[in-house]
């Protein structure tokens, strides 16, 4: 046993020396990477660590942080009903808009793939525009206005489906579905672009080989040839979808107000904002951030291991 450990240490030492020598000969590389690495560590890596640390403290900016153990998490899960409501809403939105948006992205990328080139370019612009047009979703507050002047109310009343205007964005019953609709409208984003580009890159000769081997229709072609070829893009698109689905807050805040009626449109991120920047309970907000972080990473890992099986 002792011998084994000594051997292990010697090997490690050797490895380290080799790495060190290599690093020395590549000084230029580190110099090139340094600006990015420093900023990235400062604004992405360190904040995650700091967030985990603060989540175990009581911290309100004025006093220095005081260690309180798991208290923040305990109150979050056991006492904070609004947080649980936020978790529920976030999950509802994520479970519905995440997969649906992802499938839509792929489906439309695949459908427009065979169009003539200029039509495809136009189609990409139209489909991608909502997600890039920033705050364009506020226009939906005009469509879903609560009085008879709102387009949706007016249309439904004309058709005789409803007889009084509905308060779409104030009534808790309708808030979440409307938000989901808007999020879906915006869901053809970065992943969609990746799919469009990836589909163009699939080797044509594979399709021809497929015809020879008796691929009968476009669905078989999709499953046996296109999808396996698209795996890296599918992974990338999944990451984008998940990140977006869990980070939902802009749309709900813009459409349903902040805070919304009965907190019906509260999400985890809105709750984080509330505690972080309205009440300045930084420790508590960091506990929320940590939970959100863990949820996203775990979900990503799970989906990735699932996608690895596509076409195998």
């Amino acid at each position, binding site marked *: 046993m002792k011998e084994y450990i000594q051997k292990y240490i010697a090997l490690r030492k050797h490895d380290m020396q080799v790495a*060190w020598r*290599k*690093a020395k000969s*590549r000084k*230029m*590389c580190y110099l*090139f*990477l340094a*600006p*990015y690495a420093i900023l*990235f560590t400062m604004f*992405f890596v360190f*904040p*995650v660590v*700091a*967030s985990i640390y*603060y989540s175990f403290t009581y911290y309100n900016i004025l006093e220095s942080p005081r260690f309180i153990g798991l208290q923040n998490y305990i109150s979050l899960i056991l006492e904070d009903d609004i947080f649980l409501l936020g978790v529920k809403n976030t999950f509802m939105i994520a479970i519905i808009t995440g997969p649906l948006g992802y499938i839509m992205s792929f489906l439309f990328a695949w*459908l*427009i793939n065979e169009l003539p*080139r200029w039509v495809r*370019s136009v*189609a*990409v*612009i*139209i489909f991608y525009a*909502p997600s*890039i*047009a*920033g*705050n*364009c979703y506020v226009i939906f507050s005009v*469509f879903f206005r609560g009085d008879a002047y709102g*387009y949706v109310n007016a249309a439904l009343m004309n058709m005789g489906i409803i007889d009084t205007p509905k308060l779409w964005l104030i009534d808790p019953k309708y808030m979440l579905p409307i938000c989901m609709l808007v999020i879906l*409208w915006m869901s053809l984003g*970065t992943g969609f672009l*990746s799919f469009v*580009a990836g589909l*163009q*890159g*699939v*080797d044509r000769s594979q*399709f021809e080989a497929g015809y020879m081997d008796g691929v009968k*229709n476009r669905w078989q072609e999709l499953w046996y040839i296109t999808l396996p070829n698209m*795996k*890296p893009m599918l992974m*990338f698109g999944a*990451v*984008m979808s998940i*990140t977006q689905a869990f*980070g939902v807050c802009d749309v709900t805040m*813009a459409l349903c107000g902040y805070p919304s009626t009965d907190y019906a449109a509260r999400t985890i*991120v809105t709750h*984080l*904002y509330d505690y972080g*920047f309205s009440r300045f309970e930084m420790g508590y907000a960091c506990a929320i*951030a*940590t939970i*959100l972080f863990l949820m*996203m*990473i775990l979900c990503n890992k799970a989906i990735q291991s699932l996608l690895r099986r596509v076409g195998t």
Partner: protein
Amino acid sequence: MSKRKNGAVDKPYRKPLIKKRKPNRSIAGDIALYLFLAIVAFIMAFPIIYAVNSALKPLDELFKFPPRVFAQHPTLDNFSDLFVTMGKSWVSFSRYLFNTVFITAAGTAGHLMIASMGAFVLAKYEFPGNQTFFKIVTVAMMFTGYVTQIPNYLILNKLGWIDTYWAIIVPAFASPMGLFLMKQFMEGLPTSLIEAAKIDGANEWKVFSGIVMPNVKPAWMTLIIFSVQALWNNKASTYIYSEERKTLVYALQQIQSGGIARTGQGAAVLVVVMIVPIIIFIFSESQILETMASSGLKD
């Protein structure tokens, strides 16, 4: 997929389409598909068309009942109103516009420079820590910026950058998405190109600025569009308090909450906010798609 090691020469997006129809397609299916696509495209575009039209409507048309989608007598009054009436308010509209343009331009330029330098060595050189660092960057794409917002606030506070432009600009330099896409695209560059330059006696900086950067122009556009999109739409209200340093999106929300009298101007600002990223995208679409072809995540 076959690895396109010489991706810079072989451009997958530019490949000519096969002219003849694929043998396993039915005509009825094709027609149904086109019809379906046309309907969906209309639904997707409708809110944007509506927004543009309401910005062009004169005041009396805005409140017409029943409302119409298209403006009958389009004017640019709403846009000029932005500068005229808002010019008299405490912080003029042009100031908001300047803030956003400045933040976007500075943040994008810095991001392009810094991320490309990092991506270059990550893609083309082997050194200890290379793989690990890139893996961490990929993980960082998996969570949203909201997670890090509070510690970021504390850090920016320590640096004394709260309520300055730097609070928005500098964190944008390190956006993981840009580095990721740039690195993936640079991997497609033939290594022989770099080796040849080295034999000619060019140092790393010369290789980077003289050979690599001019060859990855499609990726520039991609970094630019993602960075512009993020910065142009940045509300920045958590890090910036002073009214004269707030951004366009913030102004948009202020104007929209200004009530009915500001409806036309609100629509005009909305168009200004959304049109810039869309126009950049329209002009750089093919280059962006070329970059995205190498965006896949390999395990």
